[in-house]
């Protein structure tokens, strides 16, 4: 039987890359993503047993929400950036063009953070490569709901990004 520390180390090694990946998906900042991932593991270790069945789902969800909270924490700065965005910014969503401008990555994250927590988490978790079943476990819904949630979240993101570029 594994000790508490051994179980945590095994959990860390198996999930760290995915947890950091989820945070990076939200933040688009590898260094900050690693900060978030480590913060999430520290919180988990303090509160729960690494052998808990819910451990991966907890970590995935916490990574998404903690990273989204960090983006929301930048709200004021993001708002200032949005208002300073060049007026000639596209009013329609052109993903390729969005990525041509470095600042637009931040704008996309700000749009993501404006979504309600659940759709934002669904988008991020799925974009991070989690299966429908894993996303469902992380956010606590049935697997059958993920298609609908994902569809609505993608439509909401498109709307928010369009709104953001129209400001």
């Amino acid at each position, binding site marked *: 039987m594994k000790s508490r520390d051994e179980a945590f180390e095994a959990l*860390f*090694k198996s999930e760290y890359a995915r947890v950091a990946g989820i945070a990076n998906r939200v*933040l688009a900042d*590898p260094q900050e993503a690693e900060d978030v991932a*480590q913060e999430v593991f520290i919180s988990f270790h303090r509160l729960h047993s690494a052998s808990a069945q819910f451990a991966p789902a907890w970590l995935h969800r916490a990574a998404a929400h903690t990273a989204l909270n960090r983006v929301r924490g930048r709200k004021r700065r993001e708002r200032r950036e949005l208002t300073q965005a060049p007026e000639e910014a596209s009013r329609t969503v052109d993903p390729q063009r969005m*990525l041509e401008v470095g600042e637009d990555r931040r704008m996309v994250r700000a749009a993501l953070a404006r979504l309600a927590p659940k759709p934002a988490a669904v988008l991020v978790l799925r*974009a991070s490569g989690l299966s429908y079943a894993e996303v469902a476990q992380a956010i606590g819904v049935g697997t059958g709901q993920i*298609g609908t949630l994902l569809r609505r979240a*993608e439509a909401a*993101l498109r709307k928010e990004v369009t709104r953001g570029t129209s400001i």
Partner: protein
Amino acid sequence: MAHLSEGTLRRLVDDPDALTGSDRRHYMDCAACQARNQGMADDAHAAATLLSAPELQLDVANAFKHVQSAPAAKPRFGFSLPILRPATQQMFAVGAAAVVVALAITAFANILPLFQPKTVQPVPVTFADLQALEQLSAYGTLTWSTQPKPQIVLTAADAKTISGLDVPVVSKLPAGVSSTVTYAAMPGAVAVFTFDAKKAADAAAATGKSLPKLPSGMDGAKLTVTVGPAVVEVFGDMNAASGTGSSSQNINLPQLIVAKSAVPVVTSTQVTAKQLEDYILSMPGLSPELAAAVRSVGDPSTTLPIPVPVEYATSSKVSINGDTGVALGDNTGLGSGVIWIHKTNVFVVAGSLKQSAAVDIARNLK
């Protein structure tokens, strides 16, 4: 055949084999569904592109070392009776007691904002256990950064104005329960409890008891507790509610109490939830049965333990419109109650009632 659902079509974007036989036949023949699917595929592709991120270069071993060396800081967990005690103005205490007791031993139950408790589970306690928990007050200093301001008001509208909560409405009062209602309401309050090793030692010396040593790092640790807002409706003769001092044994339930409170949230510094749990469970006077019951509660981030005084009440699980609740049936004829969590609020219905009546009221609250 009806068109394919949004969820089915979206899943098809990720998994071309997701359609079953009849759905597949419909899709192949339906231009509308195909067009919707194409729109969804475009949005999905756009979202994936928008959410692309710079590549991670991870050093997992180094990251693990960093996590291992992290100092204790800012875990969050639920709390708790002793800290609420200063709020107990007599009238408010009657109604609040039902809510407060439900939170009494949740100091160890971490309630992350991400994972607020969604259900309740009974944990048998003795009054000796509760008294042992009260000793926590000797371990530090309580200050309120936002004072609890319970107020007694005459109308539900006023109670809502104060608390911001919709006041539960009892659909039908059981026979014999007065329709006279007194409302109490409280905005959210924030307390800071600072652990103080010297104060604990002095308190132990004064009582001649041997209290467990504060864990390393606990001296000076602060718990910040957010409680409420809450509303309480008290039906019936308030004179019957006298004698609500600090001992739970003195609580004399009025005919009916309906209470609603936001689930409490606690943040702490220097001390982890695990340390606090171990510490509380090591307190003298706490029964091994309670400690075992608390440890068996399961995932404390989603479960609010409900202390059930074993000398006075038995408990059973009940379903309140889909939420799992704990029904307390007392063995002394004093009363009964039911407590459950719906979304982010704790609800209590209690009084001098049969258990079935309390459950019926709970299920029909509007």
